[in-house]
């Protein structure tokens, strides 16, 4: 099939079966090997965890509305912020874009019928459910209070909370991540359609390739670390506890060897989404394709060399601190390459401010602030003042929420018509995007100031003179919360009442837009043959813009 016929067939008048209508029983979903159905089940599961993590976040902000610890007891507060972190990081941020958007789109984008290992894909979902279920069980039994980082010796020796259960849940969940990464790498290597060369792949796929490398290389280390923690806690073998011959800083080395690269597991797929959005909504070939592609790989590699910047005040050697500080500055380079290339892509582009693009532009501003404040924390001298303050909290929320969550929302809005075949309300989409942007900044920007003024993180009480900024932050969290609830409502509403989307509502050239919406179970009726470059908006890509406009006009009439 050439490019033109691919598009033409995508607009066939006769209704075709799709992955959503291919079986309606519970078994047809639970036993499916279709990557798209698995992605939808991930979407529902991850959304549940996101909502629960959000409730913990709301509790934190409400507690911090007043200087006194008056909403929850201090011990409960320890559990609330710990569980917020665990649910958000391990069960939302890490799986969200790869397991939902990656699962759904990666085969479509490279012209494959499915992932290379569909059964493994389903198993990874079951493992996610098992790990998540075990963690939720532990939280309901009493929860855990160690902080999401499980620092020793508190977690091994002193904490009386459900450390083992939660640790086991995270340990199990790690295998889901490893299997997903493995599946992506095998798929990208072996399942690309004819003509889909490495340098014709969408940057979303490159980003997922880099992410998968980090998943496979890093996740086993945190699994082993949590296992060692459990062994020490159960058998009192001296691994991390100094009183029995261990070293607590060894835990931090092992934990951050994974958990810093995990930041890139979270943000790299988001960067992949943003590359798609910026290019497509500027209707312009992305500037410096190869640089963006290889910067993803560079981030994945350099991301493994900087973990010690989380440990500047832990007692690690000054020499090690200097090395890690220098390398932290280096890892900023590939991130900056992306930012500059996205900006250059916008230049003289035909920009349309649809909802996904609003999120993409929001990402660029927020990630920029998040990234630049990371340099403050990577500077070995300045970080002594800022460590464990709200400056750190603000920084990583600017990267994680301002970066990953915003990208995730942008991606969900962008590919929602493809996933469901329905359009959502553009009006409410834009309102929501703006509320999220305003609410987010109102929540977290004051925290930079609070942190710089010395407000420590992880305390339920604080001095009265810091209350005004905390009120701003809590007010912002309310706006942010509304902005985040709105998509859940109008996207659900669109499933029934939304206008039919058509196969390529944005008129974009990617392969995923050259099949029906929603796609058939086998993704493409005929194996596509790729003859055009990535992000090619000209006629040579087979995009029949005039024909599409005529069809749209005819359908409206």
């Amino acid at each position, binding site marked *: 099939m050439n490019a033109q016929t691919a598009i033409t067939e995508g607009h066939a008048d006769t209704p075709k079966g799709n992955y959503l209508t291919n079986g309606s029983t519970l078994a047809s979903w639970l036993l499916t090997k279709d990557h798209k159905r698995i992605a939808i089940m991930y979407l529902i599961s991850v959304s549940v965890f996101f909502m629960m993590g959000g409730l913990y976040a709301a509790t934190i902000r409400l507690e911090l509305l007043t200087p006194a610890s008056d909403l929850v007891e201090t011990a409960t507060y320890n559990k609330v912020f710990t569980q917020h972190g665990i649910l958000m990081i391990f069960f939302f941020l890490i799986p969200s874009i790869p397991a939902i958007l990656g699962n759904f789109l990666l085969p479509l984008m490279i012209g494959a019928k499915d992932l290379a290992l569909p059964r493994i894909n389903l198993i990874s979902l079951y493992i996610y459910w098992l790990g998540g279920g075990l963690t939720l069980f532990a939280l309901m039994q009493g929860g855990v209070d160690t902080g999401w980082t499980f620092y020793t010796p508190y977690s091994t020796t002193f904490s009386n909370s459900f450390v083992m259960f939660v640790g086991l849940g995270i340990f199990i969940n790690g295998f889901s991540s490893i299997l997903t990464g493995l599946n992506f790498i095998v798929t990208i290597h072996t399942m690309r359609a004819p003509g889909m060369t490495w340098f014709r792949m969408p940057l979303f796929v490159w980003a997922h390739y880099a992410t998968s490398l980090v998943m496979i290389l890093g996740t086993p280390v945190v699994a082993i670390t949590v296992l060692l923690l459990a062994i020490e806690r159960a058998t009192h073998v001296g691994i991390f506890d100094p009183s029995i011959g261990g070293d607590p800083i060894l835990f931090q080395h092992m934990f951050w*060897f994974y958990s810093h690269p995990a930041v890139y597991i979270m943000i790299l797929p988001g960067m992949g989404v943003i590359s798609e959005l910026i290019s497509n909504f500027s209707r312009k070939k992305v500037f410096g394709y190869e640089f963006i592609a290889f910067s993803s790989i560079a981030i994945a590699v350099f991301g493994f060399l900087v973990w010690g910047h989380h440990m500047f005040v832990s007692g690690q050697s000054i020499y090690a601190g200097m090395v890690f500080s220098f390398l932290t500055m280096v890892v900023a380079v590939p991130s900056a390459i992306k930012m500059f290339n996205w900006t250059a892509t916008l230049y003289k582009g035909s920009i349309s401010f649809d909802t996904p693009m609003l999120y993409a532009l929001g990402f660029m501003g927020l990630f920029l602030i998040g990234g630049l404040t990371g340099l403050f924390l990577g500077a070995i001298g300045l970080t002594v003042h800022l460590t464990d303050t709200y400056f750190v909290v603000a920084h990583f929320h600017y990267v994680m929420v301002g970066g990953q969550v915003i990208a995730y929302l942008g991606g969900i809005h962008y590919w929602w018509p493809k996933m469901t075949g329905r359009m959502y309300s553009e009006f409410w989409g834009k309102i929501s995007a703006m509320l999220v942007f305003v609410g987010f900044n109102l929540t977290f920007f004051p925290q930079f100031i609070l942190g710089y003024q010395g407000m420590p993180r992880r305390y339920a009480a604080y001095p009265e003179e810091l209350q005004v900024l905390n009120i701003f932050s809590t007010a912002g969290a309310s706006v942010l919360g509304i902005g985040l609830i709105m998509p859940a409502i109008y996207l659900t509403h669109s499933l029934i009442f939304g206008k039919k989307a058509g196969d390529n509502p944005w008129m974009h050239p990617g392969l995923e837009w050259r099949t029906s919406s929603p796609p058939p179970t086998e993704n493409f009726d005929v194996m596509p043959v790729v003859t055009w470059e990535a992000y090619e908006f000209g006629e040579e890509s087979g995009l029949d813009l005039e024909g599409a406009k005529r069809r749209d006009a005819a359908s409206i009439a």
Partner: protein
Amino acid sequence: MSDNNSEHLHMNIPKYIGIFMILVVGTIATYFAATVDMDRFFPGANTLVALLIAFTKMTFVMLFFMHVYWSKRLIWLAAVGSFFWLAIMFAYTMQDYLTRGSGTFSG
């Protein structure tokens, strides 16, 4: 080198047992090496010897039990890459341990 499904033909059972015996010997050697004070030669010598034995054992496992020896170059690349990543973790952790006492913020 081949990439078919006949890996079981690469080695017979006695050779597998031979590799296993090498691993057992390595484990015993690790134990006895730990009982000898080699740190008198230079600090960290005991750790170095233990690591050398462990890496040797790991290499045997990767090459023969995991069939890397008979695999395609891409598999070699993945194996060597994983090994390199492990080396990164060890090296950068060790740079902390080996220099922990030297220098302070206060000078």
